């Protein structure tokens, strides 16, 4: 069995990542899951959160918003709305996003899709802050 698999992270505006990875952890709709090479075919919705992977000596962490993961034995593709590496994250901007999304949430009923979208935005922004600054105490 191969000891690594192709990991790709794709957003509508770019291909953020394409490399051979050995390990991947991602936030699935039903909880976090880990992927190792040779995983069975698997398709999951993704929540906003943090993806971490290991490729050789390199360990990477990426904040993602909601999306999809398609997993095969030798290939995993994450299709997400937006994703940022640690270097790209601007915590000030993320905090603003939270304030904005909270304001939006107030204007909508809880079963409105816009409410869910705002909640996802908050989760994404929080993931960015956590990734940059470490877990909040």
């Amino acid at each position, binding site marked *: 069995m191969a000891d690594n698999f192709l990991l790709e992270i*794709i*957003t*509508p*505006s*770019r*291909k953020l990542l394409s490399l051979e990875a050995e390990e991947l952890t991602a936030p*699935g*709709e*039903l909880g976090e899951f880990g992927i190792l090479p040779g995983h*069975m*075919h*698997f*398709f*999951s*919705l993704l929540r906003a959160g943090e993806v971490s992977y290991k490729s050789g000596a390199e360990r990477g962490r990426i904040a993602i918003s909601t999306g*999809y993961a*398609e997993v095969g034995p030798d290939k995993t*593709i994450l*299709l997400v*709305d937006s994703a940022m590496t640690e270097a790209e994250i601007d915590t000030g901007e993320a905090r603003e996003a939270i304030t904005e999304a909270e304001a939006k949430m107030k204007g909508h009923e809880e079963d409105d*899709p816009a409410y869910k979208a705002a909640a996802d935005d908050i989760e994404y922004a929080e993931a960015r802050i956590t990734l940059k600054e470490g877990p909040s105490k």
Partner: protein
Amino acid sequence: MPGLKDIQRRIKSVKNTQQITKAMKMVAAAKLRRAQENIEAARPYAEKMAELVSSLASMSSPESHPLLASTGGPRTGLLVVTSDRGLCGGFNTYLIRKAENFMSEKGSDNVSLSLTGKRGLDYFKRRNVQIIDSKPATSVTPSYESARETALKLIGLFLGEELDEVHIIYSRFESALTQTPVVQRLLPLAPEAGEREESGAEEGESTEVLYEPSVDQVLQNLLPKYIEVQIYRALLESAASEHGARMTAMDSASRNASDMIGSLTLRYNRLRQAAITSELMEIISGSEALKD
């Protein structure tokens, strides 16, 4: 018969026009390059998405999700993507003509329009058609947000059974020189019969896939997203096409202007020479007359 001064003035004015068209061509070229980069960046996502949806849709029956099922009714929503600004050759004309053809095919009473781009709105608002909504096309980098808004609106109408079908007309970017207006069906999402068989055959070989949380939930989440992505891609293609069309149009305008300057300059020189000759003739004949 225009005098020397008149011709001179015209040459000057054509030169000014040429400067403008040249500048516009340059700007369009720069924007085109950016728009092209955007398309290339969006392509992997859109393609992957299409792949996922077609494999999912072929596995599940049309009844499993309302966006897959066709109601068979005649009411059609048409999203027409045009540009905000003119001076881009036949770009908008072709799109509007295509839309008109489509409407007469479907029966224009059955079609309601959703317009992106001011040019389309300017044309259709004076005609007797139903317009659902309209918004300007943000020309260099269309935002995903705006595609999403349009998608949500159209999906809402489709699910609310106010529309039975949704199509989109936009200009597909082939190269800087060619852009083709295309009509594409967005909803219902049922794959074409041929596609279904093909992907079905592939599916037979591959192993079973585990869906989390469940196939239905995945579909519910993925299908609206797919529509968004399709519209987003159409906006990107349209932006690139617009700049391509403008570049070509401005290029030929600049060339026409320099042809015109050439012929006007020739006329100017001839006229000047004629004036000089006739002046000389007068002087010579005057002095000849004095000699005798």
